[in-house]
């Protein structure tokens, strides 16, 4: 077992290098980037000046910067070196913990990410608790009450949630509960007077602000886990060992909870470790709808703005989390299923 996990941990290194090298190369090949943005900015500035002095003679519109200036910029951003060389320079910096600065806001990338993490953690943690604490009991009930009204009606609700995108639910909720009935705020994470509130009211304020976005986050996530739980439990209820348990004199209820349930948790444990990536969760659409400055928005904007240090910084953290999440899942499976032996 130990050697297996050591091997898995070592495998993170080549996988990580592969992922980052691929994305790094893509950032070099796609059009756009900091230099193009600076050129655009200079053009806009020129245009604005021209606007004030109407009868100015035409200058070269296409390229306001001289070659010398361009080369200086390329050198500053490291675009003058070949891809591999600059990749390894970047990698060396990452290994020392230097994520670089944003080419857009000129802030350190790491602080930008760390600043948003509490919001992602908040949403990730609560959606995790809500999803698991609803899906597992609901799956059990649906399996026992298969094809009854309870089963069918919850299926309809769960699938409606699955079919509607989260941001659409967000807009609908805002229209209904923030615009029409003004029960919840229109957006944001905290009130304006947040820092004047006492601790208890601070918590209430956050809960009040996040109720609608949280609902939009989780409503679509019930279907998969609920049905995984229901179907595996139903398989196990029909299995021979549950019949054996019943023939020993157990009640149906204890046969479910002592025998069928533990076996049904095995497939659910398979995905459990990946919840570690809640640190970086966030959907930019929902964040946009509710005006929350979270990780989803940061990731999206960094790509649109070609803010490559931020893109790479998020990629480094998310790929590392995902890779360790996979190993954690393996450990979870090994805990619930004694048949699993890693060699």
């Amino acid at each position: 077992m130990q050697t297996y996990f050591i091997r898995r941990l070592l495998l993170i290194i080549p996988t990580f290098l592969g992922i980052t090298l691929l994305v790094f190369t893509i950032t070099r090949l796609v059009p756009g980037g900091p230099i193009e943005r600076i050129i655009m900015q200079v053009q806009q500035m020129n245009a604005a000046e021209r606007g004030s002095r109407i009868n100015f003679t035409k200058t070269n519109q296409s390229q306001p910067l001289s070659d010398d200036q361009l080369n200086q910029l390329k050198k500053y951003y490291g675009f003058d070196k070949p891809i591999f060389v600059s990749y390894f320079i970047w990698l060396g910096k990452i290994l020392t913990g230097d994520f670089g600065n944003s080419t857009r806001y000129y802030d350190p990338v790491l602080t930008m990410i760390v600043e948003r993490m509490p919001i992602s953690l908040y949403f990730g943690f609560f959606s995790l608790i809500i999803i698991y604490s609803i899906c597992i009991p609901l799956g059990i009930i649906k399996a026992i009450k298969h094809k009854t009204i309870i089963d069918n009606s919850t299926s309809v609700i769960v699938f409606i949630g699955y079919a509607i995108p989260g941001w659409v639910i967000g807009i609908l909720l805002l229209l209904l509960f923030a615009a029409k009935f003004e029960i919840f705020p229109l957006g944001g994470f905290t009130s304006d007077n947040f820092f004047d509130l006492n601790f208890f009211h601070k918590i209430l304020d956050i809960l009040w602000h996040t109720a609608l976005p949280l609902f939009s986050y989780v409503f679509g996530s019930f279907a998969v886990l609920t049905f995984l739980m229901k179907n595996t439990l139903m398989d196990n209820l029909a299995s021979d060992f549950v019949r054996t348990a019943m023939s020993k004199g157990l009640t149906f209820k204890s046969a479910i909870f002592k025998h069928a349930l533990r076996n049904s948790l095995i497939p659910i444990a398979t995905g459990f470790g990946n919840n570690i990536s809640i640190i970086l969760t966030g959907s930019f659409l929902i964040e946009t709808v509710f005006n929350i400055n979270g990780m989803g928005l940061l990731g999206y904007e960094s790509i649109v703005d070609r803010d490559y240090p931020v893109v790479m910084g998020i990629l480094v953290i998310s790929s590392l989390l995902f890779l360790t999440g996979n190993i954690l899942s393996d450990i979870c499976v090994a805990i619930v299923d004694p048949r699993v032996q890693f060699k």
Partner: protein
Amino acid sequence: MGKDYILEIKGLVTSFNTESGRINAVEDITFKLKKGKSLGLVGESGCGKSVTALSILRLIPKPAGNINSGEVLFKNNDLLKINPDEMHKIRGSKIAMIFQEPMTALNPVHKIGKQITEMLDLHKPEMTKNEKNKKALDLLNKVGIPDPERRLNEYPHQLSGGIRQRVMIAMALSCDPEVLIADEPTTALDVTIQAQILDLIKVLQKENNMSIIFITHDLGVIAQMCEDVVVMYAGKIAEIAPVTELFKNPMHPYTKGLLESIPKLDNIPKTKLNTIKGVVPALNELPKGCRFQNRCPYVMDICKNDPPVFIVKNNHKASCFLLQGKFRNE
């Protein structure tokens, strides 16, 4: 019910809801089990042997299956009428069951020891934990499992099929049941292991004075294990007789066919084995009248009617029109 008998099944009908409607898996099953003796339930796959056994313990999967009518008298107590709590107390402690598939009948995520002591937790709550563990160890010893201390802490997947079936037997015997229902306990095992398991069951039966219902499709096993035999075909009883009587003097054409299809030592080598022509009709398209008519070599016009039960001899009954006029109706 006479005092020699411990279990009596009367007119049992169990049905299942399927996509093609409600079908009776067993119909009008009636037999008695003698105290301390073995009764064999024999027939082809799907003839209702297991459904009969599961009906006795009320383990028919709900809501698809349902026991429609009949009585299961255990010491003059109708098990189909008692409330679920009393039934839970009888399962395992008074009537225990072992199953066909030792590979899947044990829970893969619990240790062997835990699965055995669970039975004691349920029916002998007065025992202490140490006593239970000791009892589990004794049981594993009794069923001939080598190195039982180690086995107690192992999971089912670490054991072979034969050992697992021994564990199942140990589990079933842990509360000294009066009746053991063995549903094809050796079908999934190879012949050597099969012989060992059969011997083991026989020895334990003598020790505990246990009554056994032995379900199998193997007439050889029946001859070795049982005093009485019930031959079932397509959900109904074809013939009931003491074992020697059945082998010597089979009355129902189906029983005859079964006996003829056993290969014999004095057959000429490489000749074809005798078979019963045709296949068992599906339960939703049974012919009207005798259910064996489409395969029976002696089929007559009268077979379109339901055959009555004829009493051939004391304890020997068969349900076939060939016996009409020769023996009296039940």
